[in-house]
């Protein structure tokens, strides 16, 4: 496996630019949403699922297949769980006007 110098250089470009883009974008996320942000980036970084799929699906050796199998399970947990939990959390963040209407019913239910 000799990754070409060409790719390493392209990769460094991509890494640096994505890093800057990420910095400028994520800097604007309010503290209010920092927990959902963590949950979301967690789901996104489970993109190593892509690598896990190749290792498992390529069936190079029995050993790598086992490692790939565990890796696919672990990253799928993060993808599925990560997106679901982020959505569940964000659903809870409501502005005042949206909360006004269902108030009486909810006050009953939560007490």
């Amino acid at each position, binding site marked *: *496996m*000799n*990754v070409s110098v*060409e790719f390493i250089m*392209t*990769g460094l470009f991509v*890494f640096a630019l994505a*890093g800057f883009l*990420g*910095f400028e*974008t*994520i800097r*604007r*996320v*309010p*503290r*209010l949403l*920092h*927990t*959902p*942000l*963590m949950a*979301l*980036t*967690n789901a*996104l*970084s*489970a*993109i*190593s699922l*892509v*690598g*896990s799929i*190749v*290792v*498992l*699906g*390529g069936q*190079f050796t029995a050993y*790598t297949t086992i*490692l*790939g*199998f*565990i*890796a*696919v399970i*672990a*990253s*799928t*947990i993060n*993808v*599925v*769980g*990560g*997106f679901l939990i982020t959505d*569940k959390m964000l*659903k*809870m963040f409501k*502005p005042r006007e949206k909360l006004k209407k269902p108030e009486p019913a909810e006050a009953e239910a*939560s007490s």
Partner: protein
Amino acid sequence: MNTLLPLSTGFFVNPDTDTVRYVIISLFYLVGAIGFVLSLKWMSDAKTARKGIFAGEIGFVLAIIGTLMLPVITTTGYIYIAIAVLIGAAIGVPLGLLVPMTAMPQRIALSHAFGALAAGLVGIAKYYDNQPDIGWFVMAVLGIEITLGALVFTGSLMAAGKLQEVKWLAQRPIVFPLQKTLNFAVLGLAAVMVVILAVDPSQVWAIPVIIIAGLAFGVLLIIPIGGADMPTVIALLNSYAGIAAALLGFVLENNLLIVAGALDGMSGLILSIIMCRAMNRSFRNVLFGAFGATEAEWGDQEVGSIRSATFDEAGEILKNSRLVVVVPGYGMAVAQAQHKVRELADTLEKEGVEVKYAIHPVAGRMPGHMNVLLAEANVPYEQLLDMEEINPEFPQVDVVLVLGANDVVNPAARHDQKSPIYGMPILDVDKAATVMVVKRSMRPGFAGVENELFFNEKTLMVFGDAKDVMGELITEISGNRDSINV
């Protein structure tokens, strides 16, 4: 498989002979990366944030479809993938839907562990599959990636265990002689192994050493970390997990992994910087200088007298004020008092009292912890104010209700140079007319520092469990005894 030279999409597609497939996969990855960036961009506003999740999901689906189109995947491979994905989903769905909001810090820590496990295992598999035919640069990257994967795995599990308050894990920071030396030695060992492998990738024995050193370092890293430092450490582990994914992208020649990893790494880094600033500490200090070491000092400190208030008195004061600011802390999470807090706020608002919430950046056990809990309790997010927004308002505030927060409201941070929390930005609650502190006992906070706020003449202590106290105050204020059920 080395006969087909991959390009930027990675994975064994020859752009010259298999052009259509190559272009489709590349485009899917590109759109996937755009989806990821958009999902983070839309996170900058609570109104658009849910749209962002959708963008992220689309990006993910495209990336997976693209990957499944790779010719390298065998027919049995597809079956295995389907089985593994089903198992993962079967575990992931309950983890996503059933975990209560109060358990969110450990849930997030646990997912860092899973992410690191996956990245680490893929790295290990790539090594065994390709050795000794690995260039020095890729080998070094792979070595670092495996080390990071291992250390984030155990580190996150330890953090999750501490947050879950697992019995056999000490909650207090543990410090022992030569701790730093040991930590550096373990990390140094991993570094030496990476160098050995980079020089000669056929040294297969070095991989298990790297793995063990990484796993051990992860444990050692968390041992001296106390509860108050958890937000920083979780953010830091988040960052490491992202960097591991990006490094994997270099090894697998996959730009999408590099992009996603860089975004995740950057997000974790930004959060850790915010957390460190909010505690006025450096990374080094958080990671290696446990707060617990200063514990002995406050023991002989001179303590003044405290004033405590009955529920009746406290309710009366709250009812007759114009502006009340609630300062929640970890104590609110422990007592699960967020719903009762919102009920109290509703009761006060009916009496014409304005209620706001002041959120310190490191309140709780992870970034944004208090916001999520209060949002869960249907507090409109306009009422949740950051430290910088609320601090200038405190002189106009009639009553501050401190709920399970401690170090983040300790005025010693402003003037007492001997205090371990000196210099930490705090919520200036002592500038308000009255401070009401709801507390179970006079025990100091996680930093082990005595809080002079409690002895301030403006301060009234209301002793009891946060949830019960809220219930009592609601009754006192509304004057309606039927509405309580404790």
